[in-house]
């Protein structure tokens, strides 16, 4: 008994005839598909050469790093738990107040930056560009500037977060406003309402849940940024963290990092619940 082919020859030919083109990629296209990974790798080689990465240091650095990690256990408060807790509270305060101020400032601005509510396109363009510029400077750089203005301490951090988030929130709010439906606004106008009333009763109910969700999200991510701006002296746990790294107190570093992890996880959880409560109630919008 001869071996039977798995698939009959005429079927195989039919399938090949139908889908043959899939296997018959022209060589140029094949070369092009290969060119992208090659270009990525080539640029990486160039980057390594340009930056003069000291490969010799990698082994000793890793050994050093292993030593650091070994020093981290067991994590310890170093006897100043109160200080760390206070610093963490400061971090939360910075994130909260920074987001709040950014919201209060960004909210009216965003109406000027939205296509459907701005009085003049020129105003919209100018505000958009300034928001972009503010946004492209990192919060840490703003923190450095504000430390020079109001002195060391968490207040500088609050202002830094407030400014850099005004840029981001202003953009997001104005996009939320632009994506609303005009009908509700028009019906208020048709009933003889002023344009202010139209915004209040026709537009705000549509954007508020979206905006609330975004604010919560930013509050969350600001807790993360607020943990680092202390490095430049703008308050929060970053100051302790950077000092401990510089003085090689790695058991305390580990403790601070665990505190950050727990706090961020808790805030994520709370804001997830709140977000669900706000947006879930109005799933139709």
């Amino acid at each position, binding site marked *: 008994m001869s071996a039977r082919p798995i698939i009959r020859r005429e079927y195989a030919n039919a399938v090949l005839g139908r889908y043959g083109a899939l296997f018959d990629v022209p060589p140029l296209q094949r070369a092009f598909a290969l060119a992208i990974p090659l270009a*990525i790798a080539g*640029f990486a080689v160039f*980057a*390594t050469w*340009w*930056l003069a*990465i*000291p490969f010799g*240091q*990698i082994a000793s*650095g*890793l050994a*050093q*790093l292993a030593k*650091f990690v070994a020093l981290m256990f067991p994590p310890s408060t170093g006897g100043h738990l109160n200080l760390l807790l*206070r610093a963490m509270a*400061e971090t*939360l*305060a910075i994130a*909260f*107040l920074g987001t*709040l101020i950014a919201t209060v400032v960004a909210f009216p601005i965003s109406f000027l930056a939205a296509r459907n509510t701005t009085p003049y396109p020129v105003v919209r363009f100018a505000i958009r560009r300034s928001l*972009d*510029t503010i946004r*492209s*400077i*990192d919060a*840490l*750089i703003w923190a*450095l*500037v*504000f430390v*020079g*203005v*109001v*002195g060391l*301490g*968490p*207040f500088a*951090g*609050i*202002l830094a977060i407030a400014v850099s988030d005004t840029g981001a929130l202003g953009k997001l709010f104005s996009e939320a406003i632009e994506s609303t439906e005009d009908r509700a606004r028009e019906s208020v106008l048709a009933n003889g309402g002023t344009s202010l009333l139209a915004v209040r009763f026709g537009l705000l109910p549509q954007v508020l849940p979206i905006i609330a969700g975004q604010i919560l999200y930013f509050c969350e991510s600001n807790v*993360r*940024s607020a*943990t*680092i701006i202390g*490095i*430049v002296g703008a*308050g929060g746990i*970053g100051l302790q*963290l*950077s000092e401990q*790294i*510089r003085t090689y107190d790695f058991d305390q*570093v580990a403790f601070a*990092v665990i505190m*950050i*992890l727990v706090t*961020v*996880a808790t805030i994520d959880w709370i804001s997830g619940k709140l977000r669900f409560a706000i947006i879930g109630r109005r799933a139709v919008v």
Partner: protein
Amino acid sequence: MTSQILSVPPARLEVLLADYQREVGRRRRQSLLVLAILAILIAIAARFGEVDLNNLVRNISNFTSYFGRIAPRLSVVNFGADVADWYWNIGGWLKLLLDTVLIAYLGTLFGAGSALAMAFLAAVNLAPSNLLRWSIKRIFEFCRTVPDLVFALMFVSAFGLGPLAGILAIAIHTFGALGKLFTEAIENIDMKPVEGVRSTGSRFIEIVRFGALPQVMASFASYTLLRFEINVRSGAVVGMVGAGGIGQDLFVAIRKFYYTDVSAILLMLIVSVAIIDLVTERIRHRLAGQEAGR
């Protein structure tokens, strides 16, 4: 014939109005409650945050005049020389800026590469083992929650000053952030091709390569490009703690009040981020188009 507006009988009207008042009152009370909670939170936060409005009012002119001070002194008559004076170190800064971009590039590449390798093991629909999936997810979480600046500080201590520390710090943070996004993208794929490949008796790696990867490649590339742009910004920041790139110079300029240097470096950074933003957005739109056409 006179037109007549249908009027509601007074008794019914009263009921409706009462209902309306009650509903409005309920919502008013709710809003007041939220406002009260907010006010209490603000009071507590203001205490911990050492908010000092007097200090702000006293020094706000410092802030506004800061922009005046960092503004370059340019005149129309002597424009070329003034610009040359403003950008007196253009060669050095351009080199450092390129350093920062390359640090971000290598960091993104390593971070995205390792995230790509791990994400398939962390996705609930493909993961071979639940324990492995859980631990990889925790690793992702750890890497993206610990600020990249903290990693940078530690790596500067371990590897010495220079770009290596910056690359590693950015790579680790990128690994955590992209790992999460990649995993979510994989969890949303169509499982039919995966089942098709699995039914031929393929191993895990082949299922991933032929069943899952083609579906997520475009969104992975798009996320990675977005991350690259973010990393150029944080590349400038990790430079501040000595991890290479232009951050160090910016830090020194701000701290030592070399005002016009601050504006010169910031402008270069803003422009290069904007250019990278534009280019990556173009590519991402093309990728999104491919995705839709597939």
